[in-house]
């Protein structure tokens, strides 16, 4: 295998990635950007009565959710570092990461809505209280849900950064040096670990921010309605039957992208300008600040409880057709929602097969690239991957749709596969490149010195040592792929009924039991993938 690899190097090793992923992605983005010249669409957009309030809501929910998630993540990390629970925290974060956003939003919504579980526990009235929780005009419910849901993602990204290559050992040395200078555990985290960590969390934070400011499905469940967030305004316009409205929706997507980019650059600029202040803070003399153990514990418990409760609530919601106020438990009848789901297992099987294939091919293409290309070339590739995640998904999908239609991939399984691959491979490259490039080359040298062929050195030494990151990357690729709805609808012309396709179309009828049942069904495969990756990927010597 390695000899074939060498013969392919370096051009052919890069070809699958360039042809199947980078090229279609760049073309899609170009097609979307090209549509920016329609002046009439821009005029219609600027005259839209919801433009400014909706934009403000989007920026507010995105920023507030990102900052809240970051702050809570840092407190959790500061409080748990060096404790026995540190490694368990990593497993919990992975499990939380596996929960699909929409599934969480539905459960979280039922928890806090005026007729929801908390209201039933708190109120004894004949009808639900007039709480302004879900769909509050300020977007606070949406912000809270986004913040809670993104904490596992930020924790996972932080763990990946902290354990990368020699980073862990180096940071440990720095921490010990600081401790001998009289710094407390909290001060060490604040002044040694956090600055290095934040530098590594830049892109994950950008992804969280863009996701929060552009999310549509969660905003429809939890977000304000008059006006809604800007992404919802754009989504409605893109879904209109009038081409003029569609063009306005595209303009809205581009405007949102531009404003997000500006916001990110502004934050970047502010951080850069305040370097001196940061340095003064970082070099301030020894402080005995302790680690925030209690605060971190309370936050971790609340976040886990919210995530768990929201998902567990889907069970009674899916089982009972009706849950009349003010019952704490639903009547024990029904199960029709699960019967509907069980009656058509084909979408589940198609989704499982498709996402397994997408995940496997993503890993294969990524390893092929990493084995044959010099590390310097990763840079632009990672930029493209991050860019594709940082651009609102509505914009990427629109361009992809035009492209695939023109080359005859619309309505085809191959088109569906490539569209899924686009997102999955981006995540896989981001997750895998660090650990892969950080691999200590001396192991391979030793293996070769012991007369192992390049192929057997790769298969018997390198890949097994990289088992954990490879499995994590596969699980992420799988989880990202299996919840995709837009490719099946837009690119495959709805001809391939995937599980999310079934879930989204059925949920448009508004049956909560069915929506909850499908949300749970969409939660289980990624959860299983992460658990499996965690168990199989555990180092044998631990």
């Amino acid at each position, binding site marked *: 295998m390695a000899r074939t690899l060498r013969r392919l190097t370096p051009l052919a090793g890069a070809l699958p990635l360039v042809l199947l992923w980078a090229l279609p992605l760049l073309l899609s983005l170009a097609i979307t950007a090209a549509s920016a010249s329609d002046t009439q669409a821009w005029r219609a957009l600027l005259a839209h009565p919801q433009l400014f309030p909706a934009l403000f809501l989007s920026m507010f929910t995105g920023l507030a959710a990102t900052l809240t998630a970051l702050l809570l993540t840092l407190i959790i990390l500061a409080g748990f570092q060096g404790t026995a629970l540190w490694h368990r925290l990593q497993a919990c974060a992975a499990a939380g990461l596996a929960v699909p956003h929409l599934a969480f939003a539905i459960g979280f919504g039922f928890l806090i809505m005026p007729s929801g579980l908390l209201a039933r526990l708190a109120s004894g009235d004949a009808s639900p209280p007039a709480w302004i929780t879900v*769909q509050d005009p300020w977007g606070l419910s949406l912000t809270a849900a986004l913040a809670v849901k993104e904490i596992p993602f930020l924790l996972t990204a932080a763990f990946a950064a902290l354990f990368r290559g020699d980073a862990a050992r180096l940071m440990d040395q720095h921490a010990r040096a600081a401790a001998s200078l009289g710094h407390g555990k909290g001060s060490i985290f604040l002044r040694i670990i956090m600055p290095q960590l934040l530098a590594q969390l830049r892109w994950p934070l950008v992804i969280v921010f863009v996701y929060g400011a552009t999310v549509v499905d969660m905003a429809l469940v939890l977000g304000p309605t008059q006006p809604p967030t800007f992404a919802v305004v754009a989504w409605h316009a893109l879904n209109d039957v009038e081409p003029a409205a569609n063009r306005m929706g595209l303009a809205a997507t581009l405007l949102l992208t531009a404003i997000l980019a500006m916001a990110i650059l502004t934050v970047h600029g502010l951080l850069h300008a305040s370097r001196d202040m940061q340095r003064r803070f970082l070099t301030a003399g020894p402080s005995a600040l302790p680690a925030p153990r209690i605060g971190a514990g309370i936050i971790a418990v609340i976040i886990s409880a919210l995530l768990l409760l929201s998902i567990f609530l889907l069970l009674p919601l899916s089982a009972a057709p009706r849950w009349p106020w003010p019952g704490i438990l639903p009547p024990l009848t029904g199960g029709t929602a699960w019967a509907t789901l069980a009656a058509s297992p084909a979408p589940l099987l198609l989704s499982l097969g498709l996402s397994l294939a997408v995940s496997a091919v993503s890993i294969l293409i990524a390893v092929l690239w990493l084995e044959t290309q010099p590390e310097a070339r990763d840079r632009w590739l990672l930029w493209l991957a991050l860019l594709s995640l940082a651009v609102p998904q509505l914009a990427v999908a629109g361009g992809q749709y035009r492209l695939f239609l023109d080359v005859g991939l619309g309505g085809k399984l191959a088109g569906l596969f490539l569209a899924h691959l686009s997102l999955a491979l981006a995540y896989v490259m981001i997750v895998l490149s660090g650990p892969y490039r950080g691999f200590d080359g001396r192991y391979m040298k030793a293996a070769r010195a012991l007369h192992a062929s390049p192929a057997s050195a790769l298969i018997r030494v390198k890949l097994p040592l990289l088992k954990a990151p490879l499995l994590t990357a596969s699980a992420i690729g799988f989880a990202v792929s299996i919840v995709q709805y837009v490719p099946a*609808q837009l690119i495959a012309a709805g001809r391939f009924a995937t599980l999310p396709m079934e879930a989204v*179309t059925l949920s448009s009828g508004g049956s909560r039991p069915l929506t909850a049942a499908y949300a749970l069904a969409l939660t289980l495969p990624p959860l299983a993938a992460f658990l499996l990756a965690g168990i199989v990927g555990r180092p044998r010597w631990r």
Partner: protein
Amino acid sequence: MTFSLTRRALASLAALAPFIGAARAEEDWAAIEAQAKGQTVYFNAWAGSPQINAYIAWVAEVLKERHGITLEHVKLQDTGEAVRRVRDEVTAGKPGSVDLIWINGENFRVMKQEKLLFGPFAGRLPNFALVDVSGKPTTIIDFAEPTDGFEAPWGMAQLTFFGDGQKLATPPLSMMDLLQLAKTQPGRITYPAPPDFHGTTFVKQVLVETIRDKALLDRPTDKAGFTDAAKPMFDYLDALHPHLWREGKQFPPSQAQQKQMLADGELLMALTFNPNEPANLVASGELPATTFAWQNSGGTIGNTHFVAIPINAQAGAAAQVVANFLMSAEAQARKADLDIWGDPTVLDVKKLPPAEQALFKSGDVPGGVRFPADAIPEPHGSWVPLIEAAWLERFGA
């Protein structure tokens, strides 16, 4: 002599014409059925209801068995998805991915205007003769737009309200009654925000009940005419909104959510376009058996939903066979059955043979319409964008 013979010949020919026409049509139809055999029809239809999905699956079984046609239900969240797809495919000159589409109103008007539809075909379908075009004029006029045979009627719809009889003893049978109810029960009434289809219909119903000159509604309008004619409508909404859920500053984004809020006890009533949906929801256990439905005493807005064939359909012949079967007494009766779907028929049941009439069951069921009223045709299509824009401007932010 020659002349008279010719004249007689002509006269007899003229007398025969309808029969020749019928024979030709029968032959044509047989040819279409033959061509349809073995084709696959991608039927793009909203799929938000398991009952409707199951009904379409039944149609697929029958068509496979009797006509050798494979019917694939392409499940849509929103019909606009398929309209845009057809337009994009036609623009790109690509073969169509849609063979049959469940459609009406705005979507139909756009497709017809942009010449994205195959036809006229509806009048040529044998079962079209059974349709009650005089008693149910909306079967040939879709939101004030003549169908001209570019879509075949499938089912009837009429704006219907519903609530729980235990919490709402007397239903508001007019918009004025509704205002009184909202004043006594603040925060328990609302409607979906336009441009949601149901929300726009609610506002249209207000327009119909408040406008001074109803004759205006059948005619095209412009911004100035609309602003003047709709003033009583906005006066009414301004009076109503402060008493609505969240003081009329927020609205549920969809009918689906409003329905759920009724089931959860947050609201007193909800609305639907399928008069039998409340009965359906009682049957599936989503609403209590004490639920009942009503229509405003002066009549509520009603319309028809159809199936149409895109111009670039790959299985046009089979799509026509499907459309024809959907209009058959057998398929219509099953569709109208409350245990199956409960969608009212487009046929004139009284004109069917007794055996087929018997297929249409009727009777009082929990959740049924206790106060029925006549259907009022939709206002002319030009009113809709003006209503939606004005509503958004006033109440959207």
